[in-house]
């Protein structure tokens, strides 16, 4: 579960998020909509601990990530974001590592059993039809392949919540549909999906809840479940 309460975020003296409050329940497929500059990416960056709000509270699965007027340690904040995985617009694969190493780097650095990590990575690559590309480097992959590597990499840490920051905007319709099908499948298995997008049609087609932002706070919060 993700909870934001009375969150304010200012960037270089410009207010981006103003008194934003929302909560996302486990297992939801939520799209965050809004025009460019409204604070959608800021929202996911706050949730994933990439930036810090000036005010407000953020909780993830009942653990505080940010508490008003309470200084939290880096360790506490990092611990709160453990359930979270994120996929970026440009995927941000590590260009100097092959596909397999992109997937296994984080678990190996966190001292997980190397054999298990490798097995898990190879299984994910098989699930995403990337087995033959395990030794390829990101610049040798097509856009669709990079997209699947990015998803596989984030799944290596067994996240409960997946944040997707405009990752579909640069994709052609076929790749977009492929990507969204993967997200739907993950959601069916219980993963909470938060999709940042400016594409209304995409949101209506795949999400079960749409939160529209405007002027730094929630304008509409619509459930699409019948």
């Amino acid at each position: 579960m993700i909870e934001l309460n009375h969150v304010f975020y200012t960037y270089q003296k410009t207010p981006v998020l103003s008194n934003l409050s929302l909560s996302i329940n486990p297992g939801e497929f939520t799209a965050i909509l809004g025009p460019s500059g409204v604070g959608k990416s800021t929202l996911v960056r706050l949730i994933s601990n990439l930036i810090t709000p000036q005010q407000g509270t953020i909780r993830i699965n009942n653990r505080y990530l940010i508490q008003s007027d309470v200084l939290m340690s880096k360790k506490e904040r990092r611990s709160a974001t453990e359930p979270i995985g994120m996929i970026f617009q440009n995927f941000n694969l590590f260009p100097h590592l092959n596909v397999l190493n992109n997937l296994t780097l984080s678990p190996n650095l966190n001292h997980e059993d190397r054999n298990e990590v490798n097995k898990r990575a190879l299984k994910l690559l098989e699930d995403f039809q990337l087995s033959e590309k395990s030794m390829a480097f990101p610049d040798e992959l097509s856009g669709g392949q990079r997209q699947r590597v990015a998803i596989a990499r984030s799944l290596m840490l067994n996240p409960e919540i997946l944040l997707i920051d405009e990752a579909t905007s640069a994709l052609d319709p076929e790749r977009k549909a492929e990507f969204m099908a993967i997200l739907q499948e993950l959601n069916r298995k219980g993963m909470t999906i938060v999709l940042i997008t400016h594409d209304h049609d995409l949101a209506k087609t795949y999400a079960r809840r749409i939160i529209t932002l405007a002027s730094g706070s929630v304008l509409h919060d619509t459930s699409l479940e019948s």
Partner: protein
Amino acid sequence: MSYLLSITPYILEGFKTTFLVFAVTLLVSLPLAIILATTSLHAPRPVKRLLSLYTWVMRGTPLILQLYVIVFGLPLLIPGFFTRQAIIGACLTFILNYTAYFIEIFKGGLITIDPGQWEAASTLHISRFNTYSRIIMPQMIRNSLYALSNECISLVKDTSLVTVVGIGEIFRNAKEIMNRDLKIQALFIVAIVYLLFTFIVIQVFKAIEARLRMERKSL
């Protein structure tokens, strides 16, 4: 031909010093510059300013001037400060000078790294230290390889400057022979030695680049 063969051993005797200055400078400056360039990213402003001042002074003044100041000038300015041998002062000067250039090269390599790499590492719960060492630094070094090779070639040639502080190396030995015999053939031998040395440096960097490309293809 017999003349050339007779003067070559003495000239090559000076190559030991040439190589010593080159090797010591590289072995100390490169790791130092890597550390300073990466830590300067998130260092407090006063530290960044100090580093900028240092690189400005080192790159803004001639190496020959720096050699004079450190080898001859510092012992006069600072009581008790001395370099037992000029070679130590010369190596120190080269280290200070080339560290500054390498810092700027590595900073250039850092700037070209997509900021998203940091964000990806953070969301994958990779620690700051591991982000630097496993993600940022390898990319920084790869991005800097071409500029580094140019700087190393400059270093090969700059080693000849130690002659101004009285240190015998290949160029000075050639000059002695030239002055003694009033012939310039010695300079041609020096030119050949420098050309061979720079050729080796170029080949080493080509091998590093090839190795990096092979790692991508052979796996």
